[in-house]
């Protein structure tokens, strides 16, 4: 619960609006596919182009996704909810109104448990509602915006793709909490399999409503900050915006209700538009659609079919495998829990599996510019690798190298070790000779050990490891060196 702001006597108040693009096969109100990429305007029809006379029909799959997310967040499913029209003119919106939900969303209420380095807090969920996405505009010209564009092109492939909007209560008090909230919500969405939830590609989008106040005083005017396309940039944008507002208020200024744009390169927010009055979207019930009234039996069926959710999985991992909360958080954040569980099921000691995953796998993925979860690593491969370490065949140090080859498709861990001759040398007679050579070569270091400086043995162990290209069993080497130096 600490931010830069609290040191100044101010408290940040943050609420998030997250849009999740659903991975349904077809669009929200028509039969067009929802695939990504390809030529512009190929996945369109009279309905999603807003051609005169066309009519929307609700996609049951999208309703199902909305109900499942609502239930996973602990919310209530409305026995009857409605679609409204949100009226405003914009060229990438084919009908010049967006079909959305207004006063009666499909799901209301719920809570998200959010854990940061400062502990666990609960963030209330206001609502989950369904709506359709807009098309995408491309504005030619120097500005890159519609104002001043030479001409504009519109691609309606995205128009009508189903979206869920998840609105939080203003319960978030720091950038770190906001990041944790978004990470956790994303994990739930992924666990439900309702979206690929990629912030970078826009299949998950997050706007932050940020204000500051002194505790005990009313909330300040808020700024809605847009254009954050990673968890990291969400944190940066909020931190910047909180500092900006605190500095403004401290300097005697007033925060004005407005929409601000986060510039990732500049690391700053700037005014997009000032909301002098609330925008009037002239919401009214869409007369082309009937109420959404999911049968209670269907809702119960969906509730019963919910997967184990991330929070429950984490608790189970801590309890069952004695992992630390940090380790579990790292695994979860990298999407590596399934691999971990497979490896343990295949006989891997949990501590070895978690160490390999949280250290080596994540580092390797980062070197290659991959998402760790996208590496083609199976639990069976991981178990085989930890097995080789446990039975002394492979040194911990070389395990990462083997891992690299396995991921590059050069065989199973055992095959890679055999192929490259990476078996650990634990044979005492072979290593004893090398130890003797090293002691002779590094007489100064050897003398320090003899004089009682046991830490100095490290340099000698390192020399033996170098001499064996890392294959020597460091425990055996250490023992051999100490025997020799104690004896002399």
């Amino acid at each position, binding site marked *: 619960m600490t931010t830069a702001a609290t040191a100044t006597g101010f408290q940040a108040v943050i609420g998030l609006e997250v849009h999740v693009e659903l991975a349904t096969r077809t669009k929200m109100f028509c039969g067009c596919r929802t695939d990504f990429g390809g030529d512009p305007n190929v996945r369109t029809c009279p309905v999603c182009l807003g051609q*005169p006379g066309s009519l929307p029909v609700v996609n049951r799959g999208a309703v199902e996704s909305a109900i499942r997310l609502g239930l996973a967040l602990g919310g209530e499913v409305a026995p009857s909810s409605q679609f409204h029209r949100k009226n405003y003119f914009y060229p990438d919106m084919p009908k010049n109104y967006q079909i959305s939900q207004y006063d009666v969303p499909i799901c209301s209420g719920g809570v998200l448990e959010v854990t940061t380095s400062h502990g666990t807090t609960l963030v209330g969920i206001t609502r989950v509602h369904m709506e359709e996405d807009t098309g995408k505009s491309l504005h030619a010209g120097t500005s890159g915006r519609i104002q001043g564009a030479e001409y504009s092109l519109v691609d309606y492939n995205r128009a009508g793709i189903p979206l869920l909007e998840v609105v939080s209560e203003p319960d978030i008090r720091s950038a770190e909490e906001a990041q944790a909230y978004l990470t956790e919500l994303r994990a739930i969405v992924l666990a439900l399999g309702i979206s690929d939830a990629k912030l970078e590609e826009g299949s998950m989008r997050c706007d932050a409503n940020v204000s500051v106040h002194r505790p005990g005083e009313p909330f300040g005017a808020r700024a809605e900050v847009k254009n954050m396309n990673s968890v990291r940039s969400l944190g940066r944008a909020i931190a910047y915006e909180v500092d900006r507002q605190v500095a403004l208020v401290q300097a005697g200024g007033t925060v004005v209700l407005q929409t601000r744009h986060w510039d990732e390169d500049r690391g700053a927010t700037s005014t997009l538009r000032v909301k002098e009055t609330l925008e009037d979207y002239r919401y009214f019930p869409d007369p*082309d659609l009937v109420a959404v009234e999911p049968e209670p039996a269907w809702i119960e069926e969906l509730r019963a079919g919910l997967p184990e959710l991330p929070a429950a999985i984490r608790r189970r991992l801590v309890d069952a495998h004695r992992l630390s909360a940090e380790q579990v958080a790292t695994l979860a954040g990298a999407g590596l829990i399934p691999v971990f569980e497979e490896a343990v099921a295949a006989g891997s000691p949990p501590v070895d599996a978690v160490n390999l995953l949280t250290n080596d796998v994540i580092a390797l993925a980062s070197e290659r510019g991959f998402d760790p979860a996208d590496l083609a690593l199976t639990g069976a491969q991981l178990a085989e690798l930890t097995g080789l370490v446990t039975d002394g065949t492979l040194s911990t140090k070389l395990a990462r190298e083997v891992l690299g080859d396995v991921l590059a498709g050069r065989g199973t861990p055992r095959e890679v070790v055999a192929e490259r001759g990476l078996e650990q040398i634990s044979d005492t007679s072979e290593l004893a000779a090398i130890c003797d050579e090293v002691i002779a070569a590094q007489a100064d270091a050897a003398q320090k050990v003899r004089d009682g400086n046991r830490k100095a043995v490290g340099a000698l162990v390192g020399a033996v490891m170098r001499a064996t290209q890392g294959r020597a069993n460091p425990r055996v080497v250490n023992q051999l060196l100490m025997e020799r130096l104690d004896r002399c």
Partner: protein
Amino acid sequence: MADELTTRSALQLRDLVAHGEVSAEEVARAHLERVAATDDQLKAFVTVTDDAALAHARDIDRRRAAEEPVGALAGVPLALKDVLCTKGVRTTCGSRILQTYRPPYDAGVVERLRDADVVVLGKANCDEFAMGSSCENSAFFPTRNPWDLDRVPGGSSGGSVAAVAGFQAPLGVGTDTGGSIRQPAALCGLVGVKPTYGAVSRYGLIAFASSLDQAGPIARSVTDAAHLLAAIAGPDPRDSTSIPKPLPDVLAGLDDGVSGLRIGVVAEFMAEGMSDGVRAMVEASVERLAGLGAEIVEVSLPHAGYGLAAYYLIAPSEASSNLSRYDGVRYGLRVDGATTEAMMAATREAGFGSEVKRRIMIGTYALSAGYYDAYYAQAQRVRTLIARDFAAAFETCDVLVGPTSPTVAFPLGELTADPLAMYANDVYAVPASLAGLPAMSLPVGLGEAGMPVGFQIMAPLLRDDLMLRAARALEAEVGFDAMPRGPNALAGAAI
């Protein structure tokens, strides 16, 4: 024979074609010739699709010759209101903004017409976006009333109605939001049916007010209208407001008469407001129904008086949103501007006529924050009350009756300067529209200036069959002659 084909009913033409006495092509040609000969005066069509109509007719003849299946109304010509999408054939809604618009798909109604092998002769004129009661709001030209070419045919389906009344086609399809089939049918001496809301697909019906719009038949007889309704009604999964079960059979009991039916005369409709000529015909019709064995009772719809006000908030509110899409970006008219916003504004300024703009402004206002509760929400509450009034009335009555329109057809230009007087034309039509009920008009005689008078019958939800049955009985008793006559009428039915 070709000369008098245009005087035949839809069912007669169907039978002539079915029995091989005449080809579908001959039927189509006769009607297209009548259009060519009379439409300079009548101005019923925006677009005549001669080639497509003849090609369809020839295809019907070919299939008949090859003993392949043909539809239920094979070879019967029809005038289609120009608010229903026809693939590749321009669909204007009587508006400059869609003057060149060619839809990429067919409306559900158009598919059903094709399934029935009804031959569409062309796209009929209408008030712009179906907003109007005289057909004078068309951006192109006003349509004339075949009974008096200096009078309006009513609206907004004035073109489809004038074509049928002028014997250019035996059938028409119109759309009715607040009387746009019934009122012009009344003013031109025709049968016009607004089916139960949801009975006919709205897919491809270019929306004016989505919660009210409904396509329906126009014909010179109840039987023809019932057959056309049977052809176009039915569930459509592409329209979420379509009723997912078929309409009860409207043909089976059509000739069963009204003996034993309880018919409610709506007291509020019979109070002041209608002309003497209309009143006389409406009262005579009620007596005729009594004479046919119906039990006549007076019923009250206490909130019907608020219907017109509620309608003129709900319909423009929906329209203001429905018409937002006409912005010059994707299709239709585009008037260039310095910015996208300026282009959109210039396009809409040039593309919409004054009545459409007026309704967009009324609707935008009614939906605005701060006004929504007082206007749109209040109008919806009135709508609920009116629906309850009807439900209560139908506890004691099988159908309700009253006038369709307060006056006979009025001269062109008489009401164009007075929008409220024009809106008052819809006063008897909108209550059933707001309640989603089936309602229809049939001609029952002549009123002032020798112009036709319509009689309205309303029925409970999905009881279109009962409504048509009562209309059929009254029609037979009245024996109305649909041939326009009078000093300024369009010349005879034959070419």
